[in-house]
């Protein structure tokens, strides 16, 4: 009997050890960004393409207010309500003290400077495909933005989802290298794929999620119910969205639909970001959306 108990205890310790090993936060190899020279002007384009201000600025921010990234927006979900943190340039309340490596670990691996997992409400499932150079550029641009002393508020997430180690398991299940849309792409479609799949994080809303909150990649961009809310995110695959490429590009620029209705809800916030991209980038995103597998 005693021997069995000891064996069970050893197994439990081994299991916990394996769980820890499998789920521990994994920062990037610092060599990945070593020696990269930041381009601040390009960093601004990355900033708008990645849509940082959509969540981290005030929901009703306009013009220059979009650059005050003090956080505070609330994101309800089936797992609790997440609150966007302050990522302004403030040394203590924000991320003013972060290095480019810190930002790269956050965006590519969902790992904080202290080595903790971030919740995937921060779309590192998308950003993990971003180019290291773009992150270095973005870091330099963020350093030019205002500081704001508003403290970040804690997430309102209950047990068991408040155990961040469990997020390592989520990452094992859902973090993927490589592109969702593969095959032969033109240079323009490839540019659009990068903007949508690596920075724009369209799929974070427009791809349905399973019970654990992971994206169902077999239904990429096919829309689905709003988690923890009412209504549906629309299907933006060619199976449903029959707009021309020019229509899609115009929507991302001015928010006008082909019927001259305009974007509302969170999509209005998205257009406030994509409006700052080049015509070329918006046309590339539209070209990419036409290459996505049609879904009913």
């Amino acid at each position, binding site marked *: 009997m005693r021997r069995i108990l000891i064996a069970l205890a050893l197994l439990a310790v081994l299991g916990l050890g394996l769980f820890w090993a499998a789920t521990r936060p994994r920062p990037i190899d610092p060599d990945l960004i070593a020696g990269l020279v930041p381009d601040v002007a390009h960093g601004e384009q990355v900033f708008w393409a990645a849509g940082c201000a959509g969540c981290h600025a005030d929901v009703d921010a306009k013009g220059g207010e979009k650059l005050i990234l003090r956080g505070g927006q609330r994101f309800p979900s089936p797992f609790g309500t997440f609150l966007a943190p302050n990522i302004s340039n403030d040394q203590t309340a924000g991320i003013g003290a972060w290095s480019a490596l810190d930002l790269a670990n956050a965006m590519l691996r969902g790992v904080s400077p202290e080595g903790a997992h971030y919740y995937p409400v921060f779309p590192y499932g998308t950003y993990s495909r971003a180019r290291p150079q773009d992150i270095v550029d973005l870091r330099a641009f963020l350093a030019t933005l205002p500081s704001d002393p508003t403290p970040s508020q804690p997430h309102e997430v209950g047990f068991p989802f408040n155990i961040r180690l469990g997020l390592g398991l989520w990452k094992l299940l859902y973090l993927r290298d490589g592109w969702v849309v593969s095959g032969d792409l033109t240079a323009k479609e490839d540019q659009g794929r990068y903007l949508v799949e690596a920075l724009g994080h369209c799929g974070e809303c427009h791809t349905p999620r399973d019970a654990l909150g992971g994206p169902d990649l077999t239904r990429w961009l096919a829309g689905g119910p709003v988690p923890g809310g009412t209504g549906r995110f629309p299907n933006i695959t060619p199976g449903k969205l029959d707009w021309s490429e020019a229509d899609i590009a*115009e929507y991302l620029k*001015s*928010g*006008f639909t082909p019927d*001259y*209705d305009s974007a509302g*809800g969170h999509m209005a916030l998205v*257009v406030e970001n994509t*409006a700052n991209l080049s015509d070329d980038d918006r046309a590339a995103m539209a070209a990419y959306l036409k290459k996505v597998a049609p879904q009913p």
Partner: protein
Amino acid sequence: MRKPTRVLTTALFAGLLLAGPVLAEDLNDPEEILTARHGYMLLMANQLAPLGAMAKGDAPYDAAAAAKAAASLAALASVDTSMLWIAGTETGALEDSDMLPEAVSDSAGRDTRFAELKTAAETLAAAAGTDQDSLKAAMGGVGAACGACHKAYRKAD
């Protein structure tokens, strides 16, 4: 063949005579307010359609047509619509309404946003007749003004 037509015509006229005063009395009816609001939005869309087609390159740029549509849009943006944002016409109260209650309660914010639309539409009216690039640049401002109001006061899909 003639007689049924005449009966129909008479019936139509009688219907119009009856409907006239009913319509006039019903301007405060929530359904009528909703119809007017939707009509107002559609009127703006009607002016935006040719402008957008020229901006996208779906239609050839026509300076006179662009200037006319943009001037009409600016006129529409300056119309007093305060009677269209009334309690009892919000989403939930009326089946076809997507208006959030904030459109009524936050009248100061609504006024600010309409003022921004007016400014953007006037900028567009000044630019639309110049050339296609000026038109394209000024469309974004109008789109942003539309979006700002919809973001604040219209139910998300």
